[in-house]
């Protein structure tokens, strides 16, 4: 148990510390693929450091909610990172929150971000909040349906048990999981404000969603939000890996398997980041009102996955 708690803490801390690195890697890959000279992989850390050192500038009419929200968002994402198994599938904390609660944590962070965006009362802030909620009201149930498919297979909504079931199954093909994986990919793209739903690197009022919400933030508040964004990308990647490519993860008490698991995780993350950058490079951002169609497709795929589970796999 005590090793479990230690591993849990280590794993969570590692996720928090390494999350910006994944962001840096994706940015680097994207720059290479687009023929630009790439920023160093540690660039996100430098940005964070710079932001933490600056004086925070806050609008006159900002309420306490505005200053509280970045801490809340960061705490939510840290908690989410603590629930998702990355290297070792033994998390004493995970029974406190299952996958449905995980969706709830993401929703909590999102609602706080949207409320903070509306707090100053600028035109862009409310616009971003509205668009974010538009994207999420389709993405959130779709994510739940993906989790439901996985938990119907494993008879549990506990992430470690789902991962254990999926990792130690006989090599059987689950068509439902294939649907779920595609849906999950689409949802993660939308939830992490990536192309084709949103573009993290523009501030164009016609298109921006996430960036519009955080326009009024600066310095340490912005740093916390940026870090939380990196953490979210990391958590989603870890989730995708845990659900659909769980091989190599160390089971409970398998300390010897740890180095291998770490290597496997790093390799999968590197690959995943590169694929993300590749897809972002070859696709264009869709118009805002095409985003519901994109997400509606994800939602339908996820529900189809569940139906297929009932049709073929029970």
């Amino acid at each position, binding site marked *: 148990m005590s090793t479990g708690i230690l591993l849990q803490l280590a794993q969570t801390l590692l996720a928090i510390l390494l999350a910006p690195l994944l962001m840096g890697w994706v940015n680097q890959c994207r720059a290479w693929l687009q023929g630009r000279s790439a920023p160093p992989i540690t660039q996100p850390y430098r940005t964070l450091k710079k932001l933490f050192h600056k*004086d925070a*500038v*806050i*609008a*006159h009419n900002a*309420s306490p*909610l505005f200053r509280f929200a970045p*801490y*809340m968002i*960061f*705490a*939510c994402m840290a*908690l989410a990172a603590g629930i998702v198994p990355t290297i070792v599938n033994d998390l004493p904390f995970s*029974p*406190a*929150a299952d996958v*449905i*609660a995980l969706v*709830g*944590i993401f*929703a*909590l962070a*999102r*609602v706080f971000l*949207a*409320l903070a965006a*509306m*707090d100053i*009362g*600028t*035109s*862009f*802030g*409310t616009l971003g*909040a*509205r668009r974010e*909620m*538009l994207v*999420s*009201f*389709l993405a*959130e*149930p779709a994510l*739940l*349906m993906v989790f439901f498919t996985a*938990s119907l297979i494993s008879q*549990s*909504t*506990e992430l470690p048990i789902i991962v254990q079931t999926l990792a130690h199954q006989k090599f059987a093909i689950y068509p439902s999981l294939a649907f779920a994986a595609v849906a999950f990919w689409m949802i993660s793209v939308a939830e992490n404000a990536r192309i084709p739903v949103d573009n993290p690197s523009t*501030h164009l*009022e016609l298109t921006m969603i996430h960036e519009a919400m955080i326009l*009024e933030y600066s310095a340490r508040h912005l740093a*916390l939000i940026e870090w939380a964004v990196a953490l979210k990308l990391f958590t989603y990647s870890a989730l995708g890996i845990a659900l659909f490519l769980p091989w190599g993860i160390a089971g409970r008490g398998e300390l010897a398997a740890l180095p291998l698991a770490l290597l496997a995780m790093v390799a999968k993350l590197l690959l995943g980041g590169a694929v993300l950058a590749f897809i972002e490079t070859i696709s264009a951002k869709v118009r805002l*009102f095409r985003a*519901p169609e994109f997400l509606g497709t994800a939602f339908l795929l*996820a529900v189809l996955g*569940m139906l297929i589970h*009932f*049709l073929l796999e*029970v």
Partner: protein
Amino acid sequence: MMETFSLLPLEPVQWAWGVVLFWLALGFAALLLQRVPHLLSRLVFPLGALGALFIAGVGVAGLLLPTSTIILPIGLPDLPFHLRLDALSAFFMVLLGGAAFGITVYASGYFKSMAAGPLALLALWYHLFLGGMVTVLLANDAYAFMVAWEVMALSSYFLVTTDHKVPEIRRAGFLYLLIAHVGAISLLLTFGVLQGGQGDYTFDTMRMAEMTPFWASAAYLLALFGFGAKAGMVPLHVWLPEAHPAAPSPVSALMSGVMLKTAIYGLLRVTFDLLNIQIGWWGTLALALGLITALYGVIFAAVQSDMKRLLAWSSIENIGILLAAFGLTLIFYTDGKGALAALTLTALLYHALNHAFFKGLLFVGTGSVLHATGVRHMGHLGGLMRFMPWTAWLTLIGALAIAGLPPLNGFVSEWLLLQAFLQTPGLTQPYLNMVIPVAAATVALAAALAAYVMVKFFGIVFLGQPRDPALHEAHEAGWPERLGMLWLAAGCVLLGLFPTQVIGWLAPVVSLLTNQSLVNDGNWLMLAPVSAERASYAPLIFFAVVGVVLLLTYIWVRRVYHGRVRRSDPWDCGYPEQDARMQDSAEGFGQPIRQIFEVFMKVERETPDPFSRSPHYHGASLDKAWFIFYVPIARVTNWLSEQAGRLQHGRIQWYLIYSFATLIFLLVFTTR
């Protein structure tokens, strides 16, 4: 029977009836106190609140103690009132008392500035309303039930029409009265079917009656219609968005938080207690109606601009979720899956309790806004968090809870319901296995949309810049209001943090209705309804970890770095001349939903003329159900009454001929 009254300690049902009498006395005392208006709000409402607290206590006692009954010799000579307090009644009494306590404490401050005459009348109706609801829960025969049901409907009608000088409010009240009575007729017929030709209308007889499936189904459908009309099931929901904004806020809170639940109570009572048999398709029907109601309600909530109308639509959504849970309970129950029925029923009861607290809180929160600003339309509000921090933060708790966010209470019931949906592979009917994933998806969609609605509600009303300069004078609510809101908010937090305890209290109700109880596999910290392997959720740990991470982050950021803050104008991408009108309006925030779900709505738009000097924009998304179901009925009724009107000429000869013809007809008819 008088002897039992003299015995101490009294049984819970007698205590409950005592509180009803106390409320009655209080209501009539209010009429006498018209001359001393300050006593009305300072004495009558706080005493009424104490009564509510006491009712909650009686409810807790009723959950722990065995069922108790009394027969009261009131009413018609051979028809005494039968009252009975079992676990189901007791649970709804806890719900009623808990929510009504906070709301009535709030009301004691809210109605302070009202003129004495109307206030005295309002106090009378208010306490009659409370008493009527408790009697509905206690009634053990159809006669007492219908009398109490009518008292509840009529007193709430008079409460809705408190501002009867406004034509829209009279219209809303009429619509409410009409649908309430259509529902009541259906309930009368339900009891008529249930008594099975024995001529005895006590519930005890009904429990014994043997029913054929046909008549049982007839009773169930009539009950679903009757209680659905009271609860706001689509398409009988049209009175809710009219009546709730019309009523004073504490009354809306009471109607939405508590009165709608009496319909759920009635549905549970008739289906699981009075009827001896249950049939599978009943559940499928209720599930389908519930899902339609939930989705319909939340979509319309998202496009409202009036804050109380928005909350009324959100109540429709929640009633839909309750109905869906009810349907799923029936499906499991008729399929012989008692344990799963227990899980779903627990989710239902939990959600009903939660909704009483958070919807009560949100409605009284809008009441404070209304008091401070006099505006209900969200397009004229904004930025109130700075002027009314208490109201804003407490309302935020309610908004987060209703959006189903952890670790508050809305999440727990949603979690339990989703867990129940995940159990459906155990069902024996294969087609249900196919339908239920879609149902789960619908519930998840409605819950996600609820978050959209709440961000809109809270963000537009409390955040941003004030959309009207007059808002700078908005004042914070007084202490009684704050205390009332604090009680309701505390309910939202505690019900969220201690689900295992709450489920323990629900166990007698669940085992009463399904003969099974939900076993919690976890310890007191951890909620694990099926088994710890399957699913678990520990809100306290969750809350503690978020708190610790928050604190550590805060300390780290403030200690390691300097923590300096500079205030300046908003940046907004460098655009300097921004004013409050550039924020999203209520219509603007709902626009994406309107665009996506336009098929359900009849959208009205008036755009200004390009050359207009004072441009005015009007947009409304109207409920299509009104035009599909109600307008044709109204037309036919109108036409029929016009035809009937032709008989009336105002000439005495014609009326004499009518009487003569009737006489002849009756003579022929009877002598044949």
